[in-house]
């Protein structure tokens, strides 16, 4: 009961925030609604008892990336940006892509109901009090079974970072 109420609460905030983020004209307002969406998603993680994901979502996306977003938005001249046409350039492409995606998700839902073993996997609920500590579990799987992909991802991020620094230096 409480779990369901919490889920719909967070999910509602996430969806409404996402919709408002796309429709606001003011970039800072969009950023605020994006923050709301990200926080609500973190709330859903917490409600699934994935507390490590919850805090990583908050630290990385909300505390890190969104601060940089807002930092950049504030440096842009908003008055000029407001008068530029920002929407409706790829209207028809976007519509087709959205419809295709919606159809895909719909088919997934439909097969989940009709054919067992197809569509969305139905997971059994984890026992509330017997979950292994999250942070330890994530660390163990990252550093044992998924060590190579993890290292490759780290190198990729490092390359991106160094690349950004090099490009910023070149302009001088």
């Amino acid at each position, binding site marked *: 009961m409480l779990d369901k109420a919490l889920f719909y609460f967070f999910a509602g905030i996430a969806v409404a925030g996402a919709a408002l983020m796309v429709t606001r004209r003011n970039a800072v307002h969009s950023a605020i609604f994006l923050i709301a969406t990200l926080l609500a998603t973190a709330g859903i993680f917490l409600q699934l008892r994935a507390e490590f994901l919850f805090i990583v979502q908050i630290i990385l996306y909300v505390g890190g990336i969104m601060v940089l977003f807002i*930092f950049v938005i504030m440096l842009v001249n908003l008055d000029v940006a407001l008068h530029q046409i920002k929407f409706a350039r790829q209207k028809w492409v976007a519509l087709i892509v959205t419809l295709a995606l919606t159809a895909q998700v719909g088919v997934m839902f439909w097969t989940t109901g009709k054919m067992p073993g197809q569509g969305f996997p139905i997971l059994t609920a984890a026992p509330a009090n017997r979950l292994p500590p999250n942070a330890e579990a994530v660390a163990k799987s990252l550093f044992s079974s998924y060590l190579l992909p993890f290292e490759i991802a780290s190198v990729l991020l490092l390359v991106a970072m160094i690349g950004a620094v090099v490009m910023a230096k070149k302009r001088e």
Partner: protein
Amino acid sequence: MQAVTQATLDFLKLYWAPLLCGVVIVAVLPLIVGYIVLIERKLMADMQARLGPMRVGPHGLLQPIADAVKLLIKEDIIPDDADKLVFWLAPVFSVGAALLAIAGLAFGPAFQIAQDLNIGILFVVGISALGIFGIVLGGWASNSHYSLMGALRSSAQLVSYETAAGMALVSGLLLAGTLNIKSIVEAQGTQGVWFGFLAPVAFFTYLVASIAETNRAPFDLPEAESELVAGYMTEFSGFRWSLYFLSEYTNMIVVASVATTLFLGGWLRPFANVRWMNFMDFLPPLLMIGIAGYCVLRMPKQPTRVQQIFMLAVAGLCFVVALVLAAPVLLPFVKPSLKESVAPFYAGIHGGFWFIFKVSAYLYFFMWLRFTIPRYRFDQLMRLGWHFLIPLSIINVMVVGVAIIVASYFKLQGWAMLLATTPAAILAVVAALVILSIDQKNQARQESAAASDFYAG
């Protein structure tokens, strides 16, 4: 309808204790913050050889309440060109994040709202970092140049110093081996040595970075009054302004508590495992009795009758606290059979005392620095962060890891671990200084060529 009532009742049955704690903290924290401000003003006055607030109550003891009333009845001004919604939201965001972060803290073995949170210290650090949005959005929404400059500085500063602070926390957490706050403190209890001694470089880095993160002098550039009027708070007045003030001091308490938990042994007494040091249990009640006695001694010096009575009341309060602190220590002597049943009370009350004591010492250090060191320039601040603290903290994570492996190889425990960690700390500092000196040489060469970019960091 019945289902909803039933669900609410179930919810209350499960969570009444954390809810009550939360309400108490939200209600009491403004008062505590008010008195921290009073102590800060008194300290500032002492260091500048003056008296500080003296008018309201004996020695200005009622000044915080007068200040609060003043702030509440001040006119609430919203600038015409401000973004109303964001202007309204920003201070609330700041305070909300700061108060929420407190939920993860443990002020003693028993006082924790989010009991046994697995991600403990990450929760506190991550949530309190959200307060930056209040500052940045408030500065932007004011539609004023000073505010915007303050907000920009604040976000640049926070992003830079969060890396150093996070790396410092990682070094401490390597020693603890867990994120859970209770387990961190217990790990220091079983080791018998605080992690501040085992990872002194990490402690120093966190100390500096936490000052920068709470926007305190000497790193208070977002609100530098001689350059930016009041930085991001320029356009805020009355209650909104006091919300910013509240969040700033709450954040101070939060970073002090994190440092206390991770580096200063949390609620553990100094030398908690050493049997012959048990006499230290008598220090807290004796300290409170000492304060009470001092108040009684000073009582005849007060100018008016009301102030004399007030002084006596303060003395009485201190005496009551002393009794509460002394009871769990003295009762086992009177009646040895009570020893078992008194133990949890002893742990709770004395744990709380030592935790608050350490947090106060940390805050005192903050204030001391504020009145001692002049404000940094922005490029100096950035250089300190990126060219010294971040390399230092990253190197420190590596050498602390090596030191832990070496210590476990030679089976070093407790204070003997210092044999492995001290050389590691020295190594980290030397390496960081070498990097800094190389950087400075490069900087000197560049500076003659071109003017430095202010926000380049």
